[in-house]
């Protein structure tokens, strides 16, 4: 495998491993594993269970000095009323989160796909330099560059705009997308491309008609990972987006902390709405999550 170990490798070893363990594990040991698995399950879901139960309590219940672990009554209407809470314009925050994430993801795809294809297929002067820059970018995060980003977007008159955060999110998530798609392109036998080119297909036709369908899992992984990262971005948005309505949910929700009487039930309702879609997306690419982050060094 050229760079990464994508899904097929993992799946194969899973089968091997299941076979390896199945025929020699005693029942008590299996029960022990299940018990340990249950503990892990509970620990990892606990904060989100607290969030969910809190989101259907009333403000009085969630701020009661004698709190109950589970809601005594279920106030589903919180999921409607929370959008008009006075702390921050949550509807605009949700729109802002969606717009920034969607456009940043599209931008990443538009610039990363050709780069991944070309660097996986052809050697050219500057190729190593380019890939090196991509790796270095992966190690940098907006937080450490925020003061520079702030000044630059101020000078460009892009401060406090969605465009600025679309650019920031796209730039800092580019490397994962390039790497994961690069590895998928590199995994296609070059004979497939050659055959098509001999048949007279242009480079673009080869890319769109032949290669793309084969690397589709890599593209989906890149899209999902980028989208989720943009969805949760915090540090740069905190400084670059100053108008309440422009801010994404992650930034807007922090305004609730330290208030005299925080509406925790609303915070949790919004959190649940914000978390469920991206968790589902992440689960779709579970098998391929590691590949693009570790750039093949885990072999």
């Amino acid at each position: 495998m050229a760079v990464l170990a994508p899904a097929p490798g993992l799946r194969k070893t899973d089968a091997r491993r299941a076979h390896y363990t199945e025929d020699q594990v005693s029942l008590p040991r299996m029960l022990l594993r299940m018990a340990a698995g249950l503990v892990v399950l509970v620990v990892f879901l606990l904060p989100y269970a607290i969030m969910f139960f809190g989101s259907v309590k009333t403000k009085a219940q969630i701020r009661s000095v004698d709190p109950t672990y589970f809601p005594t009554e279920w106030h589903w209407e919180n999921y409607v009323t929370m959008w008009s809470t006075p702390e921050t314009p949550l509807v605009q925050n949700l729109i802002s989160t969606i717009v920034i994430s969607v456009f940043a993801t599209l931008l990443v795809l538009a610039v990363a796909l050709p780069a991944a294809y070309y660097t996986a297929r052809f050697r050219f002067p500057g190729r190593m330099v380019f890939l090196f820059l991509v790796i270095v970018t992966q190690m940098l995060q907006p937080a450490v560059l925020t003061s520079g980003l702030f000044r630059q977007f101020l000078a460009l008159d892009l401060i406090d705009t969605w465009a600025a955060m679309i650019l920031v999110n796209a730039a800092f998530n580019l490397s994962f997308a390039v790497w994961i798609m690069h590895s998928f392109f590199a995994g296609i036998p070059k004979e497939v491309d050659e055959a098509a080119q001999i048949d007279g297909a242009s480079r673009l036709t080869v890319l769109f008609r032949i290669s793309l369908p084969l690397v589709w899992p890599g593209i989906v992984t890149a899209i999902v990972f980028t989208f989720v990262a943009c969805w949760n971005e915090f540090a740069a948005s905190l400084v670059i987006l100053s108008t309440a309505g422009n801010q994404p949910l992650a930034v807007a929700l922090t305004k609730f902390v330290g208030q005299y009487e925080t509406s925790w039930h609303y915070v949790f309702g919004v959190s649940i709405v914000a978390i469920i879609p991206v968790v589902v997306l992440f689960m779709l690419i579970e098998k391929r999550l590691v590949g693009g982050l570790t750039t093949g060094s885990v072999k």
Partner: protein
Amino acid sequence: MRAEPVGAEAGTRPLRPAARPRSRGREFLQALPWIGPALALIVGVVFFPAGVMFYNSTRDISASGVDRGSAGLSNFAEVFAFPYFWPILGRTIVWVVVVVVVTVVLSLALAQLLDKAFPGRRIVRLAVIVPWASSVVMTTMVVYYGLEPYFGIINTFLVDLGLIQDPEGYGWTRNAGTAFAWSIAVAIFVSLPFTSYTILAGLATVPSEVLEAAKMDGAGPVRTYFGVVLPQLRAAIAVAVLINIINVFNSLPILRVMTGSIPGYDADTVMTMIFKYIQNQHRLDVASALSVVAFVIVILIVAAYLRVVKPMREV
């Protein structure tokens, strides 16, 4: 070098017969439409702002953003002269080391479990992903709420367990020390998924023949793990450690939520201090200077990463 195709089997057979030798410049120009947009984005939004940041660290910038000329190295002098700077740096090291070490140790155990076959393993694996996909701000906020005096649910649980006598609690989120300790716990929690999955990928590469051989030689599970499995995980652990160091060092949201409302600088790291300079004090010049210090630390870690792991090796 000609524009040669790069195949999966590392073959470098030219795509077309070498009938038309081309210049390097022309080959680069041919590649430019494909890599140019990505290059522009990286240079324009990562490297250029880094340059702006370095430049600003030597300027005198007013609170309203006016550049009042060169400041030499006085911004750096101010960063280092700040009485809380060295405690903050020390706390940053504690923050990174404790979070990364505990995360890796727990992840080794967790990956071991997730690697074994048992009914329901798929569900458990998916549950482990949840904190990875979720917004760190939101995960931290639920913990912050849970620790609130009287009504916080974690605090209540500790009272019900008898660990705390007074429902007023310890003021977990009111004191710098306890708020910082809980932040470490949250940071470990949100770092576990990535780390476990990386180690899990490493475990999948341990050849089963090696495990069989160890078993044949009469090695027990403990000896097999420490003697055979762990050495094979070296690369996976190296990657997980370095990426975690970068992530934890750069982490802002956890401390921002947990300790942000505590006055003073007793729970700050370099990263939260940078944002205090930017947002609370409007000192973009000093913030840039401290960012440069942080940037140099990150670059040193990246250099170590490239040296140890050599990710370019097989490109």
